[in-house]
């Protein structure tokens, strides 16, 4: 760990792990059953109708279309949960960061540590999701395993901008709005459940401007084995821009918030 991220940031990860230790069973159980239920009900149940009426989506059965897209939508949700209320709590309510910054830890350690932690969380979620996909026969190639880091990167593209956003919040009043107006609409309309090409033209543009559309396309292409290198590179590049830009603005914003 210390070789990949600075020692101070590793301490922030350890703090999160110590808190997580108390709730990991419940958390991982949810991470297992949520995709199970979604894939069973929508992939198999709704999918049987879709397959009968139009022969699946883009030449594959609906379940194969749905599941990998849902993987990227799910890591987005994980990022959104981890990077809003818990972080605001550590700034404002429990003042965990204030305690950390009285030690040799720095704001940079906090930002890198939180990003590392949400990365670990998304890797857990995505790995369990992949196992569920494999159980349904959706994921069956070694390349499909690449959807795990791809979906994690896609989630990170939400995580760093959300940490930046949370750093500016005086209370949690706007956070519910972020979920209602950004995360949930993207989950529903961002390409996981039906192709973005079905959206009105203007909304297609909006969808492609968000990281999720690229994460969905990447994950789906890797699981179905249909992705070409240039296309994959484009999606990766968009996601990386979001991750880096979010991280670059999160650091000064959190510093301004915490150092008075």
């Amino acid at each position, binding site marked *: 760990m210390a070789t990949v991220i600075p*020692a101070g940031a590793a*301490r922030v990860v*350890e*703090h999160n792990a*110590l*808190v997580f230790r*108390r709730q990991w069973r419940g958390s991982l159980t949810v991470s297992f059953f949520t995709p199970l239920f979604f894939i069973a009900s929508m992939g198999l149940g709704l999918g049987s109708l879709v397959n009968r009426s139009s022969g699946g989506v883009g030449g594959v059965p609906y379940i194969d279309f749905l599941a990998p897209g849902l993987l990227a939508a799910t890591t987005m949700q994980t990022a959104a949960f981890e990077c809003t209320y818990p972080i605001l709590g550590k700034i404002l309510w*429990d*003042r*965990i960061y*204030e*305690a*950390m*910054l*009285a*030690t*040799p*830890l*720095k704001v940079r350690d906090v930002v890198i540590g939180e990003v590392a932690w949400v990365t670990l969380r998304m890797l857990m979620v995505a790995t369990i999701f992949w196992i569920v996909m494999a159980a349904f026969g959706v994921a069956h190639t070694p390349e499909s395993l690449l959807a795990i880091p791809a979906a994690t990167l896609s989630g990170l593209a939400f995580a760093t901008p959300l940490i930046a956003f949370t750093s500016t919040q005086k209370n949690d009043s706007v956070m519910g709005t972020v979920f209602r107006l950004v995360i949930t609409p993207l989950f529903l309309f961002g390409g996981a459940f039906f192709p973005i090409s079905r959206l009105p033209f203007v909304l297609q543009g909006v969808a492609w401007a968000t990281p999720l559309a690229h994460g969905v396309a990447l994950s789906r292409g890797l699981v179905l084995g249909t992705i070409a290198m240039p296309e994959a590179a484009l999606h990766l590049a968009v996601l990386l821009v979001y991750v880096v830009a979010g991280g670059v603005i999160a650091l000064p914003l959190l510093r301004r918030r915490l*150092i*008075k």
Partner: protein
Amino acid sequence: MASDSTPLISARGLGKRFGELVAVDGIDFDVARGEAFGFLGPNGAGKTSTMRMIACVSPVTSGSLTIFGENPATRGAEIRARLGVVPQADTLDLELTVRENLIIFARYFDISWAEGRRRADELLEFVQLKERSKDKVDDLSGGMKRRLTIARALINEPDLLLLDEPTTGLDPQARHLVWDRLYRLKQRGVTLVLTTHYMDEAEQLCDRLVVMDKAKIVAEGTPRELIEKYSTKEVLELRFPVDARPMLDHTLDGLADRVEVLADRVLLYTSDGDAAVAAVHSRGLRPETALIRRGTLEDVFLRLTGRSLVD
């Protein structure tokens, strides 16, 4: 690295501003190694702002500050590694147990898990919280939380301990326990810097103290020096019936070096309390009670800031 004779903390013209508000206005002080140094002052005087600058968590706005001979602006993390900090408001982790709070804090100082566990158990013993080590912090009383915060501040075996109102809100028994522990730390050579609103705490713990008022230092010295300079050997406390108070205005003039009329009592500063009592009576005044006591820091505080120590 500072040698033994150089001050552990040195501030010159130290200032802190929050926008337009001047919280600390160019103060000078030195704290020697092994000393117990106190900041007294009414609410809003700038004590916490000063402590936070010393703790290297709040940037200095003007003037100079060195801790261990180093500059907090460039060597903050290195200085913090040698500090123990008890902030004015607890910042304990309510989701973790008492013991976990200490162990994870040890990790922040790069102390191994095994060593962190060892120190945690030792410190829980030290602050008498061993029986509560597996409890969630949320379930502790306010006084227990404060003791845990003190234990946490000691996890890195600091050379300098900063305590911002360490015993506010504690019952007398818990306060005496904290005083005893701080006294032991001092004996071990730990330098203590504390703020307090309790004059008995300041008198018990501090070798030297400064009184702050409106962002400035208004007096400095040992408790004894301050009492000698700003108070008198004896103080006569008089209580009058409520309806007799308005008549007091000038009737007490000349009876003592200084007369202070408070909401509930009148203080006469004098070198001879008994003589003052006699003089009061000879003027025909009949106080309900008359108490002669020694001058204290409370009197110093009142004289300098016009306010009681505990508002």
